[in-house]
Each structure stands twice: as structure tokens, then as C-alpha cells.
């Protein structure tokens, strides 16, 4: 594909030119090889859930084949395909969370898995009703909490414990509409059941069951993943980092950590600090060991340790193309299977580590909670020993990097807000009231959570950055996670200086609170932090979050996880804007249900809008309508 679409990103242009010279294939080559993608799949009207198929029905009502062999029509097929995307996404997040909880179950005082935020351990334990949460021995409590959390995945009765964090008004909606998620695995399983051949055919019912499964992710898997990661590895606090491919250092052993699960990455970071390895690196002619992150594992590491961000999803190949990466270490999710072959064009070792994501083509080192640090040591050693194999003639690191501020957990945000609370007023410390105050007073018009992936259907990062810049200009404070956060980091939006790009109100807020206008809240599971924050704001006012001038946005989404996320955000009462249109247009009924009708029973809906500027206009109308309804 032509490089024209990449004008936005100078790094991309240079990298792709180099890839061509090196004879390396990238996602753009493969996108071009796909030619025109199938219209039936694009509209969601292709079904292959049984062996009578594959069936495809007409995406235009009243024309062509209207039913599959079993009799399923476009509504049913679209709803089922969409639901299965949710199941896929919820599974990914939840299985990630399960590993974190297992690691917590394996914690002991002597490590390497340890409790690093004991206060949070006790806080969550108390929230879940564990008796003696403030007095029990740390590790006994951690193991008890971990076991309880593992129950959330498969308990036979009851709903997710974290649902209680929402204001009563929202809990009532979930109760009434029967979308309060039960055990996480149960929701996924039962959704796979419902979408089996010859089960559910009512598209609205499938939509609701999908919604509940999404909710099991946001309020279950993802929230457990986030909170338990904080307990294990520390709750993020504001800190400085740096981003873009320029963070790769030609004088050091560069190790790229890519994937999602902090269990592996934390061990890698721990191992890389071992003086023995640093000496070894120096002996091999390197100045040291440079760990850089990508995608969500990169986000986890930057949030907690300030590890530099090499890039987001679409840059995973470019990273290798720099020729300066000794090892790419991956665990699960969003890792191109193309990487091992690409790595072979250079000296780079590609190491997959998870049994769940064994990636063929180079090396597999099985990572487990029992042997975590040993595995990490082995990986570091391989990387260091690979340094002399680097071909200097192939090294070309784009000289572009951007300083950035990261680490804005809910706790860190509240900590910042405390600075503007006048100690002589009746306002308590440790709340989000200053935030709701400025929203209610109209100093800022609302808040947006901008999340999601990259997608070669659109110019990379363009929609992320455009939406963010336009929103902050209009006094809408933004929080970001995932690859959207990394786009913002590269664009310089995660800096205190970015206040100059804001409207007057948001600029004042940034100055007074001493924060960037766009706050990096972490990885994709950390979207649960955004849920928590919005619900705390709703709590201050005692209202359903659906009434707040808040939106969710996924400008360049790509994965099934993004679909699960969008569902739980809508299910939580927050209108969600999608910059890539999901594969549902083959059913006008299902499309209308998503974009209009669900408003009635959920208090929120999806909006599809490809043009980021038009999207911002729609969002502003949405936010102002909400303000008017609240009388603010």
C-alpha cells in the first residue's frame, strides 16, 4: 500500500522505506495483498458456525438470499457474530486477569511475586467483605483474596462483586435489564452456547446477552486485572517517561516487551536490573540494558516504572525494522504472528512465553508463576548474548522521541485533586469532588475516555490525535489508555505544556491541578479505572453515570477486546463513539438497536462515525445536551 496515508507520522515513513530496502514484509504489504476485503464479512452477514455453511445472506433487506440454510436471517447472523466478538474480547481480558490473580496466589514475602501495595490489598479485601481485612497477616490475606477472586470467574451463583462500586441508580438498571454479569467464564460460555447453531435467534436477546458478557469483562475480568496488578506491582503514580521509536538506544542491549500481562514484564524488568547482566552487557560492548515497551504491557510498565514506550500496535514491526532490537519478548494478545519471520531478517530473537500464545517461528520459553524470575533471567541472557550479532549497517533508529507524563491511576488523580481542595472548607480530601465541581460549573464541558487500537483501515494515530486535540481545545478533559494513550504520548499531549493546546477552562484546570490535559490511565484492562472514576463522580452527585457529560471513544479500534470494552462502556451508561464501523451494517435492525434503541433501556448507545472531526462535533452536542438536562 502506498505510504501516502502515513504522512502524519514521519517515523512510519522512514521505517517503511527501510523495510522495503531490507526486503522485510509489513502489515501494509499484507493489507495490500488482501485486496478488497469481503463485503459479506464486512457487513457481518457471513456465518460459519456449523458445517451446513458457510452461509452468506444479502446485506440488503429484500434482495438476494435472506436466510441461511438453518433459516437464520441477517439480524440473527449479525447479532451472533457480534456477540462472539464480545466473547472473544471478554475472554482475553479475563484470562489475563486470571493469571494476575494466580500470581497473587503465589505471592510470598521472599518473592519474586510480592505484595507491593499492602494498603490497596487491605482496601479491596475490605470492599469484598473479608473479615479482619485490616489485621490479617499480609500473605494470608492476599491468598484469601486471590481465592475469592478466582471464584469470580466460576462461582455458581451471584453476580460480580465490583458491581457494587456503581451508584445504586446504575445497579438498578442492570438488575432491571438483567445485564448484571454473573461469573465471568459462565457469561462467556453461555454466550457461546446461545450463539451455537439452532439456539438464540432473537437479535435483541443476543445483544443483551452479549452486553452482559461485556459487562463481565469491564466490571469483572478487567477490573480484577487492574486492581490486583496494582496490589502486586504497585499502584501507579505520576511519573515521567519517553515515547516513540527514538527511545531505542543504539548503544545498549534493547529488549522489547510486547503483549499484555505484567507478570512476565515485571520479572523481565527485575531481571534486567541484575548487576550481573549489566556487567555481561558491558563485556559484550554495550553500555547497558534498555527495556522498551509496546502496547499494553508497555503501558503497564510505563505506568509503574516509567519504562519508555517504543510505540503502539502499528509500530510493532517498525521496532524490529530499526535493526537494534536484541530480543522481542511477548506474552499474549495483539502480537503479529508475522514477527518471528520479520525478526529473522535481522539479528533479533523473537521469544514467545505463554502457552496460550505460542507463536511459531523462533523461540519459546515457557513462563510460569513458579519459575517466573528464572525465565526472565534466561531471556535477558539470550538478549545480551545476542548483542554482538547486531549488524551495524542495518541499524537505523528514527531520531524521534517525545517526553511524556504517565501514571495517572484513580488514586494518583485523586491525589492531584487534593491539591486544589481548600483545607478550611467542608470538602473532604481523597474525593473526586474538585473534578465534578469544574464539570458542573462549566469550566470544563465534560470528560472523554479515548481508548482503542490502531487499524490499517484508517491513517494510524490520526483519528486518536485529532479527536484528542479537538476535544481539549473545547475544554473536554481526556483520559486515555491502550494504544490511544501511546498515540497521545507520541503527539506530546501527555505533557504539562499541552495545556497551551486547550481551551481556557481546561488550561486553568491543568495549571491549578498540575496535570496534562490528557491523562494516561494505563493499559486496556485499566479502562476499568475509567469506569471507576466516572462512577465516583456520579456518586458525588448521587446520580446515574448515564446523566454525566461523559463519553467513551474508540477512534481506531481493531480487536475483539475493543468490542467487549465498547459494550461494557455502553452498559455502564456511557455513550460510546466508534471510529471504525463494526461488522453489523448487514442488519439494519441490529444497527438501529445499537445506535438508537438501546438508549431506552440502557441510558446509552453506540455512535458510528468515521470522520474524527464530525465525531467531535457530535460529541460536543452530546455533552451539551447532557449538561442542559442536568441544568448545568
Amino acid at each position, binding site marked *: 500500500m502506498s505510504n501516502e496515508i502515513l504522512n502524519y507520522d514521519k517515523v512510519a515513513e522512514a521505517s517503511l522505506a527501510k523495510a522495503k530496502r531490507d526486503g522485510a514484509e509489513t502489515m501494509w504489504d499484507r493489507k495490500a495483498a488482501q485486496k478488497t476485503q469481503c463485503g459479506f464479512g464486512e457487513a457481518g452477514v457471513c456465518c460459519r458456525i456449523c458445517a451446513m455453511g458457510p452461509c452468506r445472506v444479502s446485506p440488503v433487506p429484500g434482495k438476494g438470499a435472506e436466510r441461511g440454510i438453518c433459516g437464520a436471517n441477517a439480524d440473527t447472523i449479525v447479532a451472533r457474530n457480534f456477540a462472539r466478538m464480545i466473547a472473544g474480547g471478554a475472554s482475553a481480558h479475563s484470562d489475563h486477569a486470571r493469571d494476575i490473580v494466580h500470581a497473587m496466589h503465589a505471592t510470598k514475602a521472599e518473592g519474586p511475586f510480592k505484595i507491593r501495595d499492602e494498603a490497596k490489598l487491605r482496601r479491596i479485601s475490605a470492599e469484598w467483605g473479608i473479615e479482619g481485612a485490616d489485621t490479617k497477616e499480609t500473605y494470608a490475606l492476599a491468598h484469601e483474596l486471590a481465592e475469592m477472586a478466582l471464584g469470580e470467574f466460576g462461582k455458581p451463583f451471584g453476580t460480580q462483586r465490583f458491581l457494587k462500586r456503581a451508584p445504586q441508580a446504575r445497579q438498578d438498571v442492570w438488575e432491571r435489564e438483567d445485564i448484571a454479569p454473573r461469573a465471568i467464564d459462565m457469561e462467556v460460555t453461555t454466550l457461546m452456547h446461545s450463539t451455537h447453531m439452532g439456539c438464540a435467534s432473537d437479535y435483541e436477546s443476543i445483544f443483551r446477552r452479549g452486553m452482559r458478557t461485556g459487562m463481565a469483562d469491564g466490571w469483572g475480568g478487567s477490573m480484577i486485572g487492574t486492581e490486583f496488578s496494582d496490589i502486586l506491582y504497585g499502584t501507579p503514580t505520576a511519573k515521567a517517561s519517553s515515547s516513540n521509536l527514538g527511545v531505542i538506544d543504539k548503544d545498549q542491549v534493547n529488549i522489547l516487551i510486547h503483549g499484555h500481562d505484567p507478570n512476565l514484564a515485571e520479572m523481565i524488568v527485575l531481571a534486567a536490573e541484575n548487576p550481573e547482566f549489566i556487567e555481561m552487557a558491558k563485556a559484550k560492548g554495550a553500555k547497558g540494558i534498555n527495556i522498551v515497551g509496546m502496547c499494553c504491557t508497555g503501558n503497564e510498565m510505563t505506568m509503574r516504572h516509567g519504562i519508555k514506550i517504543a510505540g503502539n500496535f502499528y509500530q510493532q514491526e517498525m521496532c524490529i525494522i530499526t535493526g537494534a532490537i536484541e530480543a522481542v519478548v511477548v506474552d499474549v494478545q495483539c502480537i503479529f504472528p508475522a514477527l518471528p519471520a520479520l525478526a529473522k531478517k535481522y539479528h533479533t530473537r523473537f521469544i514467545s512465553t505463554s502457552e496460550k500464545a505460542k507463536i511459531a517461528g523462533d523461540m519459546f520459553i515457557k513462563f510460569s508463576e513458579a519459575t517466573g524470575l528464572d525465565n526472565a533471567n534466561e531471556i535477558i541472557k539470550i538478549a545480551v548474548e545476542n548483542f554482538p550479532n547486531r549488524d551495524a549497517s542495518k541499524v537505523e533508529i528514527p531520531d524521534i522521541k517525545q517526553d511524556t507524563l504517565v501514571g495517572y491511576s484513580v488514586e494518583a488523580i485523586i491525589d492531584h485533586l487534593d491539591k486544589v481542595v481548600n483545607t478550611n472548607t467542608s470538602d473532604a480530601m481523597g474525593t473526586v469532588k474538585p473534578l465534578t465541581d*469544574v464539570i458542573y460549573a*462549566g469550566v470544563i464541558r465534560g470528560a472523554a475516555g479515548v481508548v482503542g487500537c490502531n487499524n490499517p483501515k484508517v491513517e494510524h494515530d490520526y483519528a486518536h490525535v485529532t479527536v484528542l486535540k479537538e476535544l481539549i481545545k473545547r475544554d473536554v478533559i481526556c483520559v486515555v489508555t491502550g494504544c490511544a494513550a501511546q498515540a497521545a504520548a507520541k503527539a506530546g499531549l501527555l505533557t504539562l505544556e499541552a495545556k497551551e493546546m486547550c481551551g481556557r*477552562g481546561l488550561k486553568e484546570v491543568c495549571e491549578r491541578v498540575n496535570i496534562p490535559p490528557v491523562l494516561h490511565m494505563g493499559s486496556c484492562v485499566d479502562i476499568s479505572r475509567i469506569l471507576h472514576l466516572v462512577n465516583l463522580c456520579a456518586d458525588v452527585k448521587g446520580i446515574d453515570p448515564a446523566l454525566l457529560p461523559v463519553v467513551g471513544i474508540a477512534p481506531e479500534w481493531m480487536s475483539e477486546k475493543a468490542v467487549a470494552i465498547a459494550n461494557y462502556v455502553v452498559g455502564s451508561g456511557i455513550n460510546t463513539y466508534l471510529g471504525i464501523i463494526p461488522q453489523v451494517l448487514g442488519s439494519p435492525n441490529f444497527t438501529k438497536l445499537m445506535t438508537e434503541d438501546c438508549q431506552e433501556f440502557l441510558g446509552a448507545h453506540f455512535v458510528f462515525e468515521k470522520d474524527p472531526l464530525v465525531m467531535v462535533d457530535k460529541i460536543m452536542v452530546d455533552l451539551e445536551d447532557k449538561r442542559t438536562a442536568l441544568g448545568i
Partner: protein
Amino acid sequence: MSLTDLIYAGSNAVAGLTEGAVNDAIEKYGESHAVGYPDTAYFLPIIYAATGVKIKTLGDLPAAVGILKSLITNKDDLGEALNAGLATAVGAEIIEAIRYLDGDPYAEDAGIGFVSDPIIRSLGVPLVTGDIPGIAVLLGESADPKTLAAIVKDYQEKGLLTFMVGNIIEQASEAGVKMGLDYRVIPLGHEVTSVIHVVSVAIRTALIFGAVEPGKLADFLAYTKERVPAFVNTFGPIDEVVVAVGAGAIALGFPVIADVEVPEVPGALMTQADHSKTVETSLESRDIKIKVTKIDVPVSVAAAFEGERVRKDT
């Protein structure tokens, strides 16, 4: 009503009054009649600072009214609302200037009205040295004159310069607060527009001591925000005009502390219903730190009492 709606309601009202007053004055005196304040080299100081325009005659005013009306966009946006607050300040400055056409309008008032250049120059040194650690602007009518007086005395003891507008002047006076420049308690007047004379002080501080160039509004706002440690306390119910004036104060960087419920903005607009905490709340909001060595004597001790004259009670 939302906060911005309140601000616009007040600023539009003041704009209307200003336009009416200007038209009436021109009709009465003609366009070439001189207009201005006594003892100042800065014409209408706020307009001069904001635009660089030297208003000398009534005929210069309609253009200024045009500018102030253009500042009121009625848009739901803080920057725009703060501009409307500044427009309210410009309107008040014009209205007050017109009041001076018929001689000193404050001749019969307990307030002093316009603060002359020499007074500002005399305050300059103690402001720069921190001898005057802050400027308190008190506005309104208190439901409880006793606590009001306690607040004023507290500011006095801490060395702050206090300006007063509204019926609180008599209230404080009756409760035993001594006033005058020497006491650092300056009654300005009873009309809400007379609060503009303290804005004028802040702006001329930037002109005189900051040497900020007239016409560079942003520089003035930065100077007042960073260098003039002022804040506003309002007493009693606040109407739209007061809110609009308050927005002007916020634009200058001065926080407003009300004793009634308002749409709160942390650090800028706050409610403190407990008058025993008004002083501490205000000082903290403006980041004014005062080191006071309390001398345990039966009378108040502070620099504010330096110019006091001792007379027989008659």
C-alpha cells in the same frame, strides 16, 4: 441556571446600563465633553490597560461600549465567560466615570470611590516588600455584622489591605472597625459598580510597578494573577451582576469566596459559609502565607495601626 448563564445575565445587564449611561451623557454634555477620573495619568485605567485606548471625551466612549459588547459572546465556554466578566469591569469603569461628570459622586458617601495614583504609589513599596501580604475585597451585606467585623479586624491584624463595597461598610463601622487608608481598610462605595475602583488599583499596579505595556491584556492578566495577591469575599445573597463582576475577578486571577451556595470551582470560586473560617479559607485560596508572632497584649498589634491618631472620645 448554569454558572456561565449567570455570568452572561450579569454582564449583559451591565452592558445595557453602560450603553444607556453613555448615550444619556452624550445627549446631556455632548461628544466633546471631557470624561475621566481625578488624579490619574491613566485615563480610564482598565480600558487603557486592556486596549491602549486613551479615553478623553465622551465621544470616545461608544467605541469602547462596542468593544465590551463584543466581549460578551454568550457562549458556553469559560474563556468566553471570563471575557464577559472583564467586559463587566469595563462597563463598570465607564458607568463610574460618567458618575464623576457631575462632580465627586462620593462626596456624600462613606466610600472614597476612585483611588488616586498617589495612593497607589504609596502602597507600592509595602506591597512589593510583602509588608502588605494581600488585598482583600469585601462585598455585599452581611447577615451577621459581628463576624464581619471580626473578619475585617483579622485581615487588619495580618496587615492585609481591605477594600469594602456595599452595606458592609456601615455594618463594619458600627461594629467598631476603624477605617481609612492608614488603617488599611478602605471603604469604596455602596454601588456594586464601585468595586471597579479596586480592579483599577490592581491594573494600575501592573502599569506603574510592572511596567506592562498598555494594550497587552494577557500580560496584565498574568501580572495580576502572579503579582497582586488579591481575593474577593462576598457576603449575603449574590445577584447576577455580582457573579459577572466575580468572573472579572477570576479573570484577573483573584479567587472569590462566597458565604452562600455557588457553583464551586476549586481554587477560583468557593463557598465558605462559616465566617470563622473565611479568613483562613481566603488566604489559602490565594496562597498567602503570613508569619505572625502573636504578642499577647490587650489591644490589636499590627502595621495597620501605625498611622493611627489618638483622640479623646467626645
